[in-house]
């Protein structure tokens, strides 16, 4: 990496905030353990043959029939909670990233197209998006997942529908500002084909605010997925995400078996807070008003 490359400068500024670096480490660690879950988890929580009912609802530190310690205890089916959390993290991150990426693609396409086309088409696209932003995202996601049923693809559709509008709004704002700048006029007056003007001139210059929105929206997608799963309209019990794990333990909360809900909840909070802290730092760095 060259010393004056934009990325190197970005990193040297990023490093100045210890909180952001710590948050980034947490995010990377969590993604790492989620990816490696099949290798490092003591148990495969999806394999029902592994589960022993006599191990159910044991507190943290219990040495189960498998011969290993359940550091975070077990749930109502006798599943090792640490393994369940690692696998749950995997599913939550997967949902958040895939939904975020699809919402990004759809939203940015709509936003930039609206800004580039202008006129009635711009007005139409943006009013539809405004209309959608007026609905609470959770309500929209609930309705869609209730209509489509349970399953990963259905849930992703619900998350995308609830989130693409934020990307579209941001992309539209950024692209409208770039559209009026001299370098875009220069490209149009060359003339370059519209496709090239959009891809090579407008889009790259819209990316900084979009990256910020993307980090925050991935965190939001994970939270939204957890909410839907908690409410029972998200993922099926056979593929528990962090949200369904929390829901599973919810009924035992008052009977003192706190660990079944609390530990997945803590993992969820840690993940979302860490992503948001990283996002905050990136936002501060790309905001020229805060530049020293």
């Amino acid at each position, binding site marked *: 990496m060259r010393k004056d490359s934009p990325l190197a400068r970005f990193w040297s500024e990023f490093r100045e905030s210890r909180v952001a670096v710590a948050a980034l480490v947490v995010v990377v660690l969590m993604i790492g353990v989620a990816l490696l879950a099949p290798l490092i988890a003591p148990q495969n929580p999806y394999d029902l043959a592994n589960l022993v009912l006599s191990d159910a609802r044991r507190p943290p530190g219990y040495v189960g029939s498998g011969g290993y310690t359940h550091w975070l205890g077990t749930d109502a089916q006798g599943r090792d909670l640490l393994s369940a959390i690692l696998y749950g993290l995997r599913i939550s991150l997967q949902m958040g990233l895939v939904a975020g990426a699809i919402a990004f693609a759809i939203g940015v396409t709509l936003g930039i197209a609206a800004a580039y086309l202008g006129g009635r088409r711009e007005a139409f696209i943006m009013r539809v998006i405004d209309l959608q932003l007026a609905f609470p995202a959770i309500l929209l996601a609930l309705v869609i997942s209730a209509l489509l049923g349970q399953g990963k693809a259905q849930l992703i559709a619900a998350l995308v529908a609830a989130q693409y509008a934020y990307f579209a709004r941001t992309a539209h704002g950024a692209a409208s500002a770039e559209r009026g*700048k001299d370098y875009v006029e220069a490209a149009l007056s060359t003339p370059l*084909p519209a496709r*090239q003007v959009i891809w090579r001139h407008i889009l790259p210059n819209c990316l900084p605010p979009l990256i910020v929105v993307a980090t925050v929206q991935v965190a939001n997608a994970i939270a939204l997925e957890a909410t839907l799963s908690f409410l029972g309209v998200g993922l099926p019990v056979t593929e528990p995400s962090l949200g369904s794990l929390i829901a599973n333990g919810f009924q035992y909360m008052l009977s003192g078996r706190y660990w079944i809900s609390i530990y997945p909840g803590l993992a969820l909070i840690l993940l979302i807070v860490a992503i948001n802290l990283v996002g905050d730092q990136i936002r501060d760095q790309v905001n020229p008003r805060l530049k020293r």
Partner: protein
Amino acid sequence: MSAGAPLLEVSDLTTQFFTRAGVVKAVDGVSFSLRRGEVMGLVGESGSGKSVTGFSIIGLIDPPGRVAGGSVKLEGHELVGLPPDQLRTLRGRVVSMVFQDPLMTLNPVLTIGEQIRLALEAHQKVSAAEARSRAIAGLAQVRIPRPEATVDFYPHQLSGGMRQRVAIAIALLHRPKLIICDEPTTALDVSIQAEILAEMKELVAELGTALIWISHDLATVASIAQHVAVMRLGKIVEAGPTLDVLTRPQHAYTRALLDALPSRAKPGEFLLRGGGVPDAAPPARRPVTAAAPVPGAPYFVADRVSKRFEARPGALCGLGQKLGLVQPPPAVMAVDEVSLVVRRGEALGLVGESGSGKSTLGRMAAGIYAPSSGTVRFEGRPVMSAGAEPKKLTIRVQTIFQDPFASLNPRMRVSDSIAEGPLAHGLVDKAGSAAYVRDWLAAVGLDPAFAERYPHQFSGGQRQRVAIARALAMQPDLVVCDEPVASLDVSIQAQIINLLMRLRAELGLTLIFISHDLSVVRHLCDRVAVMYRGRIVEEGPAGQVYDNPQHDYTKRLLAAVPVLPEAAA
């Protein structure tokens, strides 16, 4: 204190900025003195430290900057090292400041009267009625028409010149002993600048205020200041009575600044003895494969073109207009039925003040804006297609923009910026594009090794060279130059002018050169068209228009241009 003692004595003033990249000495040992009622010009190019000197005098340096040494004595009292609250009691009362952009210094949510009241209350107790009458008197003093009404206006309701007058009125409120003006007329049109210069001269003489006039423009300084100091890299390189410095410059830098001015050279002559002109010739043109010109058609013609800008109503307002409940805002006729012919090989200058429509006309000529009515034709064929989504039809008309910081894509290497147009139109193939870019960089006087850099790694003058290379790499016949040197320092401006003259001769280009600077246009152009309020009021050979203007507006415009004293032979 005797009248002979200096009002302000600055000695060995040093201001440093402590940045990531190290310590920057913005002001490096500056010394001068100023008597009561005296006007001193502080001249220099950007980065010379002239503004920082002004700020340092009244203690307006913010971290990471700091006055690191030296002394500033006002009537014998030391200002350097004074605590902020004591400085505050001096600012506005004893020393005041006028900035370049009054839109930035006036508070947009307060009326003029309220701002003047606040400025008064900063140093004395006044009743509301008294403040108002003082405000009206202050506005009348700076020749603002109908001060009783203006006092209730908000800044946005005033023109740039009026806003600057308000800023001057506020600066004069407490009858300060010293006023520091930082580029006060740079953002204004020449005719407004001429008025403000004349008024300022009178006011200073009348009130006996000393004035420091900071400017990059030697001619404006010459018309107001008795003394001038030329700054470069934080140091004063030459100082003395204005007439002496400008007619018998001692320092090489002062001489170079003067030599860079097109008004002091013969039209068409290389400035600075040919500085900035590259040795490399531009790459050979590919034979034109475009359609032959329509026989008998003029080379380039704008035929009764108009451009109307309509305010786009919001949804509710639009509905109101349809129902006749709301009056639609009047459309602005930026260009109003203008006809213009450009002959092959000539350079046509388009001059006018801001809002005259010269840039809009240029953008229609370049195929960036579609005219609201009328057509623009190049060799008999329209430059843009008609219809709801007009497209540019020819690549033989290209544009060079004013601001090289804005006209290059910041996220693209300059090699890509230059090559993408020629690649898209088949002027060069992928294999040959790298060599083509290098040839063009050499032809505009840049090191071909710079091809892989990003725009932010270049200085302003270098970026404008890149922008010129990008336009010319499209192998145009006609180039629309929209204020290509307006945002550059004089010495860089001279080099870019030289480069344009050289490339025009090499390539046989036809130019439409848009500028507010009459001397640049005279230097470069064969013919001049003067625009005023969306129309061309006068058009003719450059010498004729400049020496014998016919239209009243042209006469006023030419009279407003500040003139440098002639150099002694």
